């Protein structure tokens, strides 16, 4: 029975690692999408500075976890999201309401898709 322990533990560790990573990514992207949606609301109320601060904070949060994200996600996805943050912030600073809203919505969707792809669901399995 003890000989089963090694491989069984390895498999459990890998499963736990995968689930833990998916959970942490979901929490993280939820926080970022929350900040982006809140920024859109603030822009709607005319608070451009408040929205800018929120987006900068979210962008920094994404950037600060670059190591983890690059190790676990496809590099094309992490790069596109980084570019998405930069683009959203640039349009916000230009006060381009329509284009900013579109870029922000696209970024939110991208974050949700990246997180969703890591979840252990039947949809992702098949």
């Amino acid at each position, binding site marked *: 029975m003890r000989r089963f322990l*090694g491989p069984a533990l*390895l498999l459990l560790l890998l499963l736990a690692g995968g689930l833990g990573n998916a959970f942490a990514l979901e929490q993280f992207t939820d926080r970022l999408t929350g900040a982006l949606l809140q920024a859109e609301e603030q822009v709607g109320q005319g608070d451009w500075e408040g929205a800018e601060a929120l987006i900068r904070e979210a962008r920094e949060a994404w950037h600060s976890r670059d190591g983890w994200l690059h190790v676990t996600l496809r590099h094309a996805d992490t790069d596109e999201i980084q570019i998405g943050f930069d683009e959203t912030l640039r349009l916000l600073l230009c006060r381009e309401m329509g284009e900013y809203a579109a870029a922000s919505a696209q970024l939110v969707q991208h974050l949700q898709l990246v997180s969703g792809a890591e979840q252990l669901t039947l949809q992702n399995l098949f």
Partner: protein
Amino acid sequence: MAVAFVRTIILYLLIIFGIRLMGKRQVGELEPSELVLDLIIADLAAVPMQDYGIPLLSGVVPILTLLGLTMLLSLLTMKSLRFRVLLCGRPSIIVRDGVVDQREMRRNRFTLDELHEELRCQGVAGVERVKYAILETNGQLSVLLRAADQPTTAGQMGLSPAEPGLPILLISDGRVLSRNLKDRGLDRAWLLRQLKDRGFAQPGQVFCLSIDETGTVSCVPQEGTR
């Protein structure tokens, strides 16, 4: 390019480590499940090696999962006979008393040409000389000849030749294998005496030196040392 270089080294070492964990059998004789494992691992390793837009972990995690799963399955096959049959199948008797079992041949999709090729490879001229030919679970054909067709052994002739036992290498390509020397209860002084008796001044002049259990020493000099 440096990323591809380092990734290749990591994945190569991981696969070597994994294959070592699987044991020696993995290298020579593949059961169906082991063949599948090798094919998948090779493919999994190749993708992150070439495409470094994919995280290394997406190759490493499936490889580790496969290795863990295979270790678990091989332990289960050791514990349970039913599980072993399920995973590895049963050996099939293709030839019995010189008669080919056509049903078994069809069941294993084993052609007559393949059977004759296997028999020829093992030095057997015809099916009629075969007592049993068994298709093993690793795909190899074991051929057992009829008693009348088997080579005569010294025992059958009433002879009792000396048992040479396992020869052990003491010098390999000029290097002294101290561990083997110690295992045989010998020392360097004995080895140097042996070399001196054969006209060598140092181990570097010898390509190979071995000793069997009766104490017979066999020595091959390095080319160009004499």
